[in-house]
């Protein structure tokens, strides 16, 4: 039985000037269920709050309506006050008669009448309210980081350094990601490996980081604080505990294939280590290129090994042809996706001759050509014939900002690395000629613009504003057809090497699907809010960082990695999670299992729940809301035809009663 108190605030003159507050309080007194109503100058003041608290205690109020200002302002104040007086905070409602009444309606009669209706509506809402309490879920204090590039490394280290366990899963045999491939980094030109390797080593040695390479997250179930990850590790056929990375096996191995770490510009053996500084520092036998083609497909039964040279030469007997894929399951509290990017490939690059002419390379390939540890030892040699390149043309916005051939977005880093490429090239080939085709120069980072200016002015890199139409080969030399939009002239430039600043695209799109979090149209992870929640996803407990979220450079990636780590830590720092109680609830008796709610819920908070009889027989399947994941938006309730779904604190019953009160002043 409701016993509601209504407290009408004058807000000094702010409300009282145009609203007859006494009349509103009197009107309140006439509403059935209202047992106390009064007005006061400043309800939010200490005496005002005491008035509310005393009335709750003395009159046994079961609901409170404060007719005052906007709930955005003082709802927390009064909910706190009523809680102190022993009343559930969700049984306190604000009737906003200031911002939405006295301040906007100068006519006293109209203002007063409307204020009474607003108050009556709040009374009806409280009268049909129920005490709500936050639900709690436990938190597993372990994070899963997917992707071992610089983003994943930084996140993993931050979380581990803060004292929580981390499972770092990397698809490749080594962590390091694309950053390990880079030669030097803009704008400081420090060596990429030199700054990354220490972090990689720190990861490998960290007592709280479990590094799982050659592995992919296959399935994630559960919810915030309580995920369960199923990780599949491919066999490396080399026992990490025995391998000393001596390299004898690779020397002996007869099978050579292009080295993907060098973007295919060099060769490696079937048994190999991706690069000298790889972490873990262990050789891996690549089953796809090994002569023993049955390694993976055979089911441990009858198998003939065609070649055992690596095993023969391995003094530690680390080679194990019988190694099988391994399923690793881990309980996880928070997940950070750092799956990174790859360079755009395919049809969109055809006009530029990429794939047709070996001397048309993309920027990551060029990084390897520039790298001292790369296939050419840092010399800029043409892939076609290994001769030094003297004329190099750099093309920006290849596939980026180009919805027709590629993607509408800007890849953000190309302007800077192209300047770096041109500059490094000029450092290596002093009399070389570097031409850059660009549309705009976007150099909005610390020291970035200066860096580009340096390339243009000090290194005399020729910047041509215009798009490149195509690249062909004439008489064995590449010709770049473009236009100088500043002069309006068509332009042809001969080149020994053409470097394409191709668009950055998401490296993996299946991870988002496995995590059941949305991506944008291009496969980049969708953040929960573009401004306010940039490293969270709509699914509580799943965070994103690095280029998986969108193209970004190393400083931004590292900053975001730490941001994601801090959001994950916020979660892991709690033993139990408190969730807002104003969330969806299903009347399972009414649910007809059309599961539109499941389709609609942006948070994956609605699940199909099997109702079973005592004997285990499946009776029916109904929707059920996971309180740990529901944010209370109500999109499900707005769709539910049988009205099985309702939002606590904003129930259909409350809304109907409020509408009635707003229109008639009465209860429904």
């Amino acid at each position, binding site marked *: *039985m*409701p016993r509601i108190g209504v407290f009408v605030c004058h807000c000094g003159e702010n409300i009282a000037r145009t609203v007859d507050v006494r009349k509103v309080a009197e009107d309140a007194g006439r509403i*059935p269920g209202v047992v106390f109503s009064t007005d006061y100058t400043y309800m939010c003041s200490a005496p005002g709050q005491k008035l509310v608290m005393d009335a709750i205690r003395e009159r046994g109020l079961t609901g409170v309506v404060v007719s005052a200002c906007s709930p955005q302002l003082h709802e927390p104040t009064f909910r706190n006050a009523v809680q102190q007086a022993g009343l559930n905070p969700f049984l306190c409602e604000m009737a906003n008669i200031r911002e939405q009444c006295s301040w906007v309606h100068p006519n006293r009669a109209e203002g007063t009448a409307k204020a009474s209706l607003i108050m009556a509506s709040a009374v009806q809402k409280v*009268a049909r309210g129920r005490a709500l309490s936050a639900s709690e879920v436990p938190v597993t204090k372990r994070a899963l980081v997917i992707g071992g590039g610089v983003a994943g490394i930084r996140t993993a280290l931050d979380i581990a350094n803060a004292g929580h366990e981390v499972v770092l899963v990397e698809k490749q045999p080594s962590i390091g990601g694309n950053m390990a491939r880079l030669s030097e980094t803009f704008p400081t030109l420090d060596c990429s490996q030199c700054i990354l390797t220490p972090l990689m080593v720190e990861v490998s040695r960290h007592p709280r980081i479990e590094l799982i390479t050659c592995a992919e997250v296959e399935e994630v179930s559960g919810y915030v604080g309580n995920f369960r990850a199923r990780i599949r590790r491919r066999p490396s056929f080399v026992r990490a505990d025995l391998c000393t990375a001596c390299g004898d096996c690779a020397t002996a191995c007869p099978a050579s294939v292009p080295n993907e770490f060098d973007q295919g510009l060099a060769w490696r053996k079937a048994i190999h280590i991706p690069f000298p500084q790889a972490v873990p520092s262990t050789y891996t036998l690549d089953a796809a290129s090994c002569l023993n083609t049955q390694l993976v497909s055979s089911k441990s039964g009858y198998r003939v090994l065609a070649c055992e040279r690596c095993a023969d030469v391995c003094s530690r007997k680390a080679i194990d042809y019988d190694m099988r894929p391994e399923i690793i399951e881990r309980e996880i509290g928070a997940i950070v996706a750092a799956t990174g990017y790859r360079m755009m490939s395919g049809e969109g690059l055809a006009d530029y001759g990429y794939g047709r002419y070996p001397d048309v390379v993309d920027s990551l390939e060029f990084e390897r050509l520039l790298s001292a540890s790369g296939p050419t030892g840092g010399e800029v040699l043409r892939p076609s014939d290994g001769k030094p390149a003297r004329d190099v043309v750099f093309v920006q916005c290849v596939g980026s900002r180009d919805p027709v051939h590629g993607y509408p977005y800007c890849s953000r880093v190309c302007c800077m690395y192209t300047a770096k490429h041109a500059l490094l090239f000029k450092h290596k080939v002093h009399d070389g000629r570097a031409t850059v085709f660009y549309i705009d120069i976007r150099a909005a980072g610390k020291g970035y613009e200066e860096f580009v200016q340096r390339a243009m002015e000090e290194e005399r890199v020729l910047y041509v504003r215009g798009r490149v139409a195509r690249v062909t080969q004439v008489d064995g030399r590449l010709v770049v057809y473009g236009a100088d939009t500043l002069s309006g002239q068509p332009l042809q430039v001969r080149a020994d090497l053409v470097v394409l600043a191709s668009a950055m695209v998401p490296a993996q799109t299946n991870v988002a699907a496995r995590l059941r979090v949305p991506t944008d149209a291009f496969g980049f992870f969708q953040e929960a809010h573009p401004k306010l929640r940039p490293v969270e996803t709509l699914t509580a407990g799943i965070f994103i960082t690095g280029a998986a979220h969108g193209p970004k450079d190393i400083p931004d990636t590292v900053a975001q990695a730490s941001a994601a780590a801090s959001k994950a830590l916020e979660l892991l720092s709690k033993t139990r999670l408190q969730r807002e109680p104003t969330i969806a609830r299903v009347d399972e008796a009414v649910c007809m299992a059309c599961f539109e709610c499941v389709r609609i819920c942006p948070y994956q908070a609605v699940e199909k729940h099997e109702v079973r009889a005592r004997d285990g027989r499946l009776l029916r399947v109904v929707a059920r809301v996971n309180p740990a994941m529901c944010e209370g938006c109500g999109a499900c309730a707005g769709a539910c035809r049988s009205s099985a779904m309702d939002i606590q604190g904003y129930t259909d019953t409350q809304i109907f009663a409020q509408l009635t009160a707003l229109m008639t002043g009465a209860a429904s």
Partner: protein
Amino acid sequence: MSSAETAAGPARAAAGTAGPLESPLKPRLMRIVEAWDETPDVRSLRLQPVDDGPPVRWLPGQFGEFSVFGAGEAVFTMANSPSRGEFVECGFRALGKVTWALRDLAVGQVIGYRGPYGNSFPVDSWRGKDLVFIGGGIGTVALRAPLQWVLDHRGDFGEIVVLNGARSVADLCYQKEMPAWAEVPGVHVVRTVDPGGETPGWDGEVGLLPAVFERLGLAPGGRIVVTCGPPVMLHYLFQSLEKLKFPPEDVVTTLENKMKCGLGLCGRCNVGRLFVCVDGPVFTWARMQTLPRDY
């Protein structure tokens, strides 16, 4: 046909020019003078007429239509005996629109009441006999009126056993009153909860009502069994009674079919050719055996 046949014609004359009619479904206004929770979901109300008219009269077992204006009507048996008839009491569980609205009302608020309707417990025919009251859950509410009647006319009846059961201790109705019942000489009160429903300090019985009843070892001879409870409980209780050879004529219960009018008009409470609201709600088990299974 009476007076002058006016221009309006004979039909009008036949009807007369009487004023507005009053519906038999129009309730009397009653004020809530007391309200309390029996269990977490069973609530009791004590009502008194708003007007100064004659007191409300009824017989044990009869029911009324209680209404909240704006929500509608619900049927409850009068929960108190007319021998304590200065008030009308009812007990109910909040299950639908009306009962939820009723539950939300405060002392002092006014509701509608009409009745009494239906037949009553044949208390006169029980004179001199031993009685067993068996109430399950909310069903106990329907037994309170005849029980109070019997207690108020203690001398007229023999030994009395009250078996009051519920799913759990918290769900047991009339826990506050049971000690007083037990104090009346010759009244034996047995409380029981379903297995799993007991609390650590529970000193009553544990077991389903029919089983506990069997354990009591009461012999049928001339003993009247008065019972009310959920359909499934009655089903098993009747099996027990059959096993113990209680004559069906000596077993009395009430049927709780859904009703709207209480007058045998609205058509929904019938069990075969009988209307529970008029021919019931009190039936002997013997009578029920002649009825189609429509309850």
